[in-house]
């Protein structure tokens, strides 16, 4: 019942929109399928493929996940939030400030990595204790100080 009702109202909205705003119901469903397929690929990779590889290869899977995430974000912003169909001024006022994230992510991850390396250098016990099984319980609290 819901289906038939849905279909009639679709047809109606589609027709009305083609004239008014170019609101495209088909594009929305296409976006939905793209998002769904990407999520399923992520699920399959994360559940079946990545666990078969040693932990040292994790970084390559992470790069793959970043690409998928970026693609999903693009489709949500461009189609669902309709930004792709706004004028260029509007797109730029959102996209240009968002570029700050590139610096933001790069700088802070670099900083975290440098902190870890410095600690290993200054406090060799830290690097050793990581290998001991299991590490002393104070290990966790140490970090918060």
């Amino acid at each position, binding site marked *: 019942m819901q289906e038939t*009702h*849905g279909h009639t*109202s679709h047809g*109606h*909205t589609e027709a*009305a*929109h083609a004239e*008014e*705003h170019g*609101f495209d*119901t088909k594009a*929305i*469903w296409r976006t*939905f399928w793209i998002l*769904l397929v990407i*999520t*399923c690929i*992520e*699920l399959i990779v*994360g*559940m079946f493929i*990545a666990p078969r590889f040693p932990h040292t290869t994790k970084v390559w*899977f*992470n790069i793959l*996940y*970043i690409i*998928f*995430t970026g693609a*999903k*974000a693009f489709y*949500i912003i461009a189609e*669902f*939030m309709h930004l792709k169909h*706004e*004028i260029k*001024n*509007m797109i730029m*006022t*959102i996209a240009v*400030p968002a570029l*700050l994230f590139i610096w*933001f*992510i790069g700088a*802070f*991850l*670099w900083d*975290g*990595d440098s902190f*870890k390396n410095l600690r290993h250098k200054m406090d060799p016990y*830290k*690097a050793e204790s*990581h*290998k001991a*099984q*299991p*590490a*002393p319980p104070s290990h*966790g609290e140490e*970090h*918060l100080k």
Partner: protein
Amino acid sequence: MAEAVSANQKWWSGGRSPFNVEYGKLMMWYFLMSDAFTFGAFLISYGSIRFATNAWPNPNDVFSSFPGMGHTHLPLVFVSLMTFILIMSSVTMVLAVGAGHSKDRAGVIKWMLWTILGGIAFLACQAWEWTHLYHQGAWWGRNPFPNYDGTQSTTNFTNFFFTITGFHGFHVFSGVIINIIMLIMAINGTFERRGHYLMIEKAGLYWHFVDLVWVFVFTCFYLF
């Protein structure tokens, strides 16, 4: 707002919005930008701490339960279901916005109801997940999960997980409340009297943003 845009329109010569959108919608975009930076700060501090830490728990071992499946090892399945629910409710939200464009009140009400239902379903899933983790001994300041290599993990793992998914869940909750208000206004015919459904568009932007943030939370906590 609905005027056709000609190719060589001089947007910056004054007299009209250079962005060709309604004021409220533009401000919603800017609010979402500021919110994106808040979430960004949370997620990046999480990344920074992870980069500063020797080892971290494996999400496939931590998030591997599904309601009613007991101890079956099903990594990522439940959280993928949550992702699907949120994407689906984003679709119904766009359809509500679309119905609003053509001033189809019944359509707006129907799709808003589905969107609200999706939001509530997501929150219910998250409540189950949190409860399950809590019973496993995880909470702020408590982390029962070892690192992937068997070493003792820090409480940073649970602290970041509960803080960030909690902040996102709070956004979903606010989104559901906003959507319920929009539904009531649509039922009362407020938008019809006003002559437009632009409020639905603004609520829609917020709702899609919540979905967008989840995409990043999903990657950062469940995949990395």
